């Protein structure tokens, strides 16, 4: 369970969250809100990649010591090195994080033939797959996915849904939070759709 307490966040004069409190109690949450409401910003703050002006995030009632090991995130807001190939990016992540090479996920997304393509030469769908593979391979208890189905083909969406179905099987305290403008397929797979 993730709990947001007294969150205040603004970009210059643009206030995104003012004394915002929320409890995400379901194991699978789909946040649906209009553009510019701060969905991605919330995920970034939960992952510790963006700092709020004030506020606290509790994961299973605690502030985790090593957030990086607890949370995995996939979002367009994290720029991946565009001059490296997808394989080089994954290799770098696998080596620094000490995860096994994500063979199964790569073939599940039909991504093998694009491994040697530079990231900036990948289609938007394949860039999304690359982000998802990087997040999913970490097997972190908390998985945050920003618009995971955007630009993906139907087969890949189905594969993603099957992965998410099984993701929490060995993580009893884990949680998946996604943001999505077309939540229907995720709701069918047990996600609770909530607004901000």
């Amino acid at each position, binding site marked *: 369970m993730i709990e947001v307490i007294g969150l205040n966040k603004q970009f210059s004069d643009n206030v995104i969250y003012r004394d915002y409190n929320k409890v995400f109690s379901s194991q699978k949450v789909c946040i649906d809100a209009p553009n510019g409401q701060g969905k991605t910003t919330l995920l970034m703050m939960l992952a510790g*990649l963006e700092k709020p002006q004030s506020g606290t995030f509790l994961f299973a009632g605690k502030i985790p010591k090593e957030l990086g090991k607890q949370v995995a995130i996939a979002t367009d807001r994290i720029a991946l090195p565009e001059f490296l190939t997808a394989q080089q990016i994954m290799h770098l992540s696998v080596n620094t994080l000490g995860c096994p090479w994500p063979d199964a996920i790569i073939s599940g997304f039909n991504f093998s033939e694009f491994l040697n393509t530079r990231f900036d030469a990948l289609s938007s769908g394949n860039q999304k797959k690359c982000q998802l593979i990087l997040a999913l391979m970490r097997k972190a208890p908390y998985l945050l996915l920003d618009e995971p189905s955007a630009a993906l083909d139907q087969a890949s969406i189905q594969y993603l849904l099957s992965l998410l179905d099984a993701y929490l099987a060995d993580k009893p305290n884990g949680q998946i939070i996604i943001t999505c403008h077309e939540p229907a397929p995720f709701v069918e797979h047990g996600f609770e759709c909530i607004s901000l």
Partner: protein
Amino acid sequence: MNIAFSKHLLTQYRVFMGYRYLAYQLELKQLLLQLKSFGLLFLVVLGSSVLGLILLLFLGLGKIIDSSAASQYSAQMALFYLLLQSVMLSAMKSAIKNSYQRLFQRTIARSVWLYLIDIKLLTLSNAWLIASVLIALDLSLSQWVEVPHFIVFMLLQFSLGILCLYKPSALGYGFLFSAILVCVPIHIQSLTYHMGFALLFALSLFVPVVNINGRIAVSSLFGFWCCYLLNHSWVLVWRVSLLLSVFMAYATLINERADLVPIFAVLAMAFIVLFSSSLQFDCGRVYEQYRLFFKTCEQERAFYISQFLSSILLFLVATISYSVIFGYTHIVLFVIGNMWCVLQVYLAQKNQRIMRWFG
């Protein structure tokens, strides 16, 4: 009917040319604005020697023309001038071609017009070629007969400008092959050297581009930075070219005034510090861009530190090369240069506004 059509075509061409001039001016203005930021840094370090540098450039052109004493030295100087010209034109390439709106241009004008105006703007931008033409116009007929290689040199200046716009890979290979030619200890005439350059650059057009990027295993920050520098070799090419120019100028000056070696050494060190520390502008930008990615990889601290290493390494390589080539090792100067470089790198990291110029 035909006249009316030609008139219409001419009007269209003029309108397109107007657009390209406007785009060129705007991009150049942006470039100069950014240059102003770097210029401030430059003036602080080397303000008093600017006039001397301009005179030095003309002195170099004189050495290219007057090759009677040492044709190899003259050829080296010519190649070096071509390298500097290519560096300058590469920086202006986007303004000359209006690269960002290239596809848009294709939708509103004929392809041949694009190339025609590219060449016009290229000639207008090539200050090195203009300087050579000015000198050439000042030569008498009898002098022309004595320096036929200078015509080939000017043709090379023009052709290499075109290569710079459309086939930069050939430019790289051409410089590599030509550098080998001018370093081989043989005695040939200046004209032969220049014809050799022309031939080597022409042959370079047929050398395929080798892409080794995907073959490098990137498993650490070291691999990441290597790949970055390999893919953005321009950030090193122009700095190394300018460092070479410092070495060439230093060699020329100590030949002329051996009694002023300590002063020239300090000046050379100032240039080395300036050019190597400015690499931090690029590395700092890379750090900002990929900071979050490395944070997700739990490498943020290591990534932060690693951004400073490229400029420090470049400084060390340049200083050691300088000491080895000229046999001038002054430990105090080296230590001060090192501290100065670290300070400059720190300033470059802090100054985000200046940083944008090097993008």
